[in-house]
């Protein structure tokens, strides 16, 4: 079987990203919470792989630890979206053209109607800025995304003959949703999941950028960007490296999700072969 190149690139990027983060749990080149003013604003060197920031902290170490924040926040937020969104979408599709369908989908619209950042600011204003509140804010916005994608895809499956034959075999809506609908839309949900995961990383970076995410001294990619802003003219590497890291992580996850869909679908396997 021939594996598409884009998938391989996605795998490598995502793998590097995850390995970097996991390694950071046990070992990092330099302590990230210790200030070392003498070593501040150093360019890339043997000692400081990607240079240091204005407090003399090693940028590479900060990126590694920042990955922890990104992964945790995005992963939990996507899981929240999936755990609530997919069953809601399946339920809406199974009870199409009934009050349940309307109820679920219109409440989705309600959430969609608020810009996510506004809700995030609201939550932070009430509960204070923290990683958990960032997760809640991003998670809430993942629910309607998954509900909508699930419902749309499920509706098209519900019209097929094999669903009718399952109903004739006496299977109820719940069983059909789990046995027949879910496996057939799984590939779509995986792709959506990987996209939402990368969007979650972006959202976390965005929230941290405006100071609503994790709080200092815990490093975060978004806040590294924000901090570097004022020094971009004389220390561009401070902004460049977190930016590139975010781009590569998001790109890698997207490619990974796309490739995973192709590999998971038995119908598409013939074409790849």
């Amino acid at each position, binding site marked *: 079987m021939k594996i598409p190149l884009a998938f391989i690139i996605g795998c490598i990027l995502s793998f590097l990203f995850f390995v970097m983060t996991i390694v950071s749990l046990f070992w990092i080149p330099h302590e990230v919470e210790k200030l070392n003013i003498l070593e501040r604003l150093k360019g890339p060197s043997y000692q400081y792989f990607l240079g240091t920031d204005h407090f003399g902290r090693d940028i590479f170490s900060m990126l590694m630890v920042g990955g922890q924040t990104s992964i945790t926040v995005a992963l939990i937020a996507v899981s929240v979206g999936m755990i609530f969104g997919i069953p809601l979408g399946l339920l809406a599709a199974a009870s199409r053209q009934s009050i349940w369908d*309307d109820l679920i989908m219109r409440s989705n619209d309600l959430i969609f109607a608020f810009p996510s950042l506004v809700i995030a600011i609201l939550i932070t204003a009430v509960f204070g800025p923290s990683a958990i509140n960032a997760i809640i804010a991003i998670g809430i916005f993942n629910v309607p995304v998954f509900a909508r994608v699930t419902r749309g895809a499920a509706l098209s499956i519900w019209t*097929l003959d094999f669903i009718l034959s*399952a109903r*004739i075999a006496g299977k109820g809506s719940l069983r059909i949703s789990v046995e027949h609908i879910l496996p*057939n839309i799984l590939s779509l949900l995986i792709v959506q999941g990987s996209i939402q995961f990368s969007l979650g990383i972006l959202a976390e970076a965005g929230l941290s950028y405006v100071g609503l995410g994790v709080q200092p001294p815990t490093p975060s990619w978004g806040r590294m960007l924000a901090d570097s802003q004022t020094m971009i003219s004389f220390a561009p590497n401070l902004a460049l490296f977190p930016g590139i890291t975010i781009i590569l992580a998001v790109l890698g996850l997207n490619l990974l999700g796309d490739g995973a869909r192709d590999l998971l679908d038995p119908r598409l396997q013939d074409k790849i072969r």
Partner: protein
Amino acid sequence: MNILSVSDFSLTFKNKNILKNVHLKVAPGQIVGLAGESGSGKSMTALSILNLLPSYSKKTGKIFFKDSCISDFSDKEMCRIRGDKISLIFQEPLTALNPLKTIQSQVAEPLLIHKNYTKREANQVAADTLHRVGLPKHLLHRDVYPHEISGGQQQRVLIAKGFVAKPNLIIADEPTTSLDVTTQAGILKLLEDLVKSEGVSLLLITHDLAVLSQCAHRVAIMKSGEIVEEGETEEVFRQRKSQYTRKLLDSVNYAPAKKSKASGKLLLSVDKISSSYGSSESLFASKQAKFKVLNNVTLKIFEREILGVVGESGSGKSTLVKTILGVHKYENGSIILNNKKIDAGKYIDSETRSLMQVVFQDPYGSFNPRHKIRRLVAEPFHLVKGVFTKKDINDRVDIALREVGLSPDDAKRYIHEFSGGQRQRIAIARALIIKPKLIILDEAVSALDVSIKAQILDLLAELAQRHALSYLFVSHDLSVVQNVSNRVIVMQKGTVVEEGTASEILSFPKADYTKKLVKAIPKIPVSWLSGG
């Protein structure tokens, strides 16, 4: 001189032979039929003529249009030929028309591109042509869109578009396949008239030999990219030089040898049911009147009987099937299966449900592509949960697969690995597995090629005998239904217009609609079939 001559034309896609040494000639004013089963290369021949092949194709041989060798033409040169000298009429009228443009502007398009007409002149000619192809007066004004007219009318618009620039050759690729028989008859008549009165040539591509026998001057029979026989229509039909032609013609009006005999015991009785669509419980649904699909339908099926249900699209056949299967609600009347009432929305005990099974039309949509054959075929066992052990179920799957002519090894494969005919066999295996008494065949053979259709009909007849099955055989095709059924009912607009034995209905139709239907079925002249 021939309008079109294809000589020794071969086509390969990535080292796969698509067409092999195709020879074809079309004389002026002639209708030439190109017949063959799906995948035989008919459509590829049409696309080759118009030079619309994918870029990775490799071709050898020559195609002449009059004197010019159009197979060597560049795309720019071909653009001057397409639509002007040679035009193409597609199978699916709905997708071949742009939904955002009026039918008149679509018909006028070839004139604007090829003939330097002004917009006003072009629209005038387009309106005249639309009138010529038999569109009623009220549809001739300027802002009629494709969705406002029926399928048959859409096909007429496509014909008008193909014909408006007065081409020398029209290629019609299955122009009537997606239409009802009564509509088909009108469209064929129109094509014939146009050929006669305007002297254009027509290359008619179809899988339906009966259609060709009625209108084509010459026919060519295609099989896996090769033309196996070519000649005058009557000669080809009478002489049947190639074995393949013989096989095709034998399967056209195929009737299974053994017909089971109905017993006196009533199995299913549908009494005066009515059913409608549009009853939505949604908060935002419009409170408009419901659309009635079934109106006082009554039918009875006895044990070991095959009841045919015939009707055109929109006659309510599929709704009838769903209602009987207990997945669609009905308003009044009753459906009684083996002394138990069936009503969607109310509990139907699994014993009653397991008495009937169904085989659908579309061999591609009938199976969950994620499951393996074993799980697919075993699905009806859900109805008799706990009765069988896993081994029993596996054994019965193996037996059922063998019964439909597949091997038990196939149980480990996925559905996409099978062809349309094989999938229909698997669907029958699934229907058989819990030994029902009634199998509903909802257009079960309509999507299949003629020779495969014959095999499936044979299989069904054999299984009916062996397992004492009753069939409700639903189809739009009266000729198939009359060959397999004991009794036939004819449906129109949700009502039963006629009921009787198959031969009665075909020979002495009483209702006007049935008469029209019987008359519209294209038939190969009997003497052609019998005379060797």
